């Protein structure tokens, strides 16, 4: 049986990284049919058709899918689910909004943030902020999954799958989009960046975050933040790394002024190399760091920015 995989599309553009990683995660389960849904989705569909392992792309273009509101999008996915045993998407905020709704429409459970596909019925996922890894076997006829992309390498490209148009589904018409306030940034995307520099409560203020940002810009890195920094208004919510924020696994993660609450560690402990800079030598972040440096971040970070 084939797998139906909802591509991550923002404003008509395919998120290749998230989508190709999800494809790689599930390609052992069968042919992957990618669903490209949006007000504009044709370009994204053609791009998704090049991902290795994709057998077919379904494209549903309609104004009602413009902002990927959960109700119309879930109705479409549930309607298309008939021919599939697995319904999958990368675990973005979009998919986390939509796929549990799809699962309930199909009267099956959902498995979110899957980190390993053991077999067609068995999946591994973190629980308790990643303090335990649970392997579960689903008894449901259909499996609805979101994939934690940070644990998979992206599938390659070079394929040329066929692209078919599918009809829109009935729109429950109970919600409407009002506005987006999205950060404009030239920096790499947090979840796919090779280097992430994150600041915590120790940074002290929104203005002081410039210290963190300068280091990030020198390294061509994305900027992240701990929950404490976001709650204190030092950084915007979309920078939050952790259990309920974004999960990242870059080659290098530099934690600046972050104490290392378990909820934060849940979002970054799979990074390949972790550097911690903190004035408190007892900070728990040092227990997961490959390299720890005890010192005043306002001296250490500018010096690092200069020398790196």
């Amino acid at each position: 049986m084939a797998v139906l995989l909802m591509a991550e599309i923002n404003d008509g553009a395919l998120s290749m990284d998230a989508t190709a990683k999800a494809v790689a995660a599930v390609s052992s389960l069968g042919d992957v049919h990618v669903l490209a849904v949006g007000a504009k989705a044709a370009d994204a569909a053609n791009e998704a058709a090049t991902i290795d392992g994709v057998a077919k792309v379904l494209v549903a273009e309609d104004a009602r899918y413009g902002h990927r509101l959960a109700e119309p999008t879930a109705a479409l996915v549930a309607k298309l689910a008939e021919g599939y045993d697995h319904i999958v998407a990368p675990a973005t905020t979009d998919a986390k909004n939509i796929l549990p709704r799809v699962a309930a429409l199909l009267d099956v459970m959902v498995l979110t943030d899957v980190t390993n596909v053991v077999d067609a019925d068995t999946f591994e996922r973190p629980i308790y902020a990643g303090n335990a890894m649970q392997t579960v076997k689903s008894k449901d006829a259909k499996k609805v999954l979101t994939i934690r992309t940070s644990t998979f390498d992206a599938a390659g490209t070079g394929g040329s799958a066929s692209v078919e148009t599918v009809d829109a589904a009935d729109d429950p018409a109970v919600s409407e989009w009002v506005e987006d306030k999205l950060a404009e940034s030239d920096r790499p995307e947090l979840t796919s960046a090779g280097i992430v520099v994150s600041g915590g409560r120790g940074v002290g203020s929104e203005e002081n975050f410039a210290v963190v940002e300068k280091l990030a810009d020198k390294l061509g890195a994305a900027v992240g933040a701990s929950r404490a920094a976001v709650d204190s208004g030092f950084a915007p919510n979309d920078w939050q790394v952790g259990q309920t924020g974004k999960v990242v696994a870059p080659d290098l993660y530099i934690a600046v002024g972050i104490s290392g609450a378990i909820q934060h560690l849940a979002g970054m402990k799979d990074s390949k190399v972790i550097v911690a800079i903190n004035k408190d030598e007892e900070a728990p972040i040092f227990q997961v760091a490959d390299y720890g440096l005890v010192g005043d971040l306002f001296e250490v970070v500018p010096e690092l920015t200069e020398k790196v």
Partner: protein
Amino acid sequence: MKVLVPVKRVIDYNVKVRVKSDGTGVDLANVKMSMNPFDEIAVEEAIRLKEAGKAEEVIAVSIGVKQAQETLRTALAMGADRAILIVAADDVHQDIEPLAVAKLLKGVIDAEEPGLVIAGKQAIDNDLNATGQMLAALTGWAQATNANTLDIDGDHAVVAREVDGGLQTIKVKMPAIVTTDLRLNEPRYASLPNIMKAKKKPLEEKTPEDYGVDVSPRLEVVKTAEPPERAAGEMVPDVDTLVAKLKEKGVV
């Protein structure tokens, strides 16, 4: 308008989790339990709606073991008006899956007819982030997940949602399901007089059979394991050493 707030009893977020040696799950015996932090935010938001004159009654619901009474008393002490406990498990280690929880909540909704459900976006135990969306599917209602702000505008709710790129504002027709993100509000602490008063507020006990819902799990836990440990790192004395180490690793 009635506001329904589902609350879950979970391991306290400050407690270090230990995996049971037989691999069947996480040890919850004699561990401090609290209300799921996202649900506290949901209770707070519902109470604020009542205080602002936009809701008449706040009903807290919990589904799980009998001890979830304590969690409901906390919600009542914060300011909820009454509570419903659906006793669906005898063993604290038995987690009722979001699909079954959503079916039971649907039963409560059919009986109570609330105008709004405010739920936590995820429980910090199973981290599934699913119940609100599933309940929205079963009721056919609109959903506004990851709420950063919530405003009631006539028969619509306007919600700014925390999404990957920033904030997305949507307007949903009520009745609707809203799930809370961290920045929606800062929950109050219950005062001692309110804790005393909460003991006298009504708490009704129900069973899944009352709603005709089968709560048997769809997922079988094969094993639960500790996450892989990271190898011990080293402390470096200064920036020069750090830069040298990072260059050696080839990451800068």
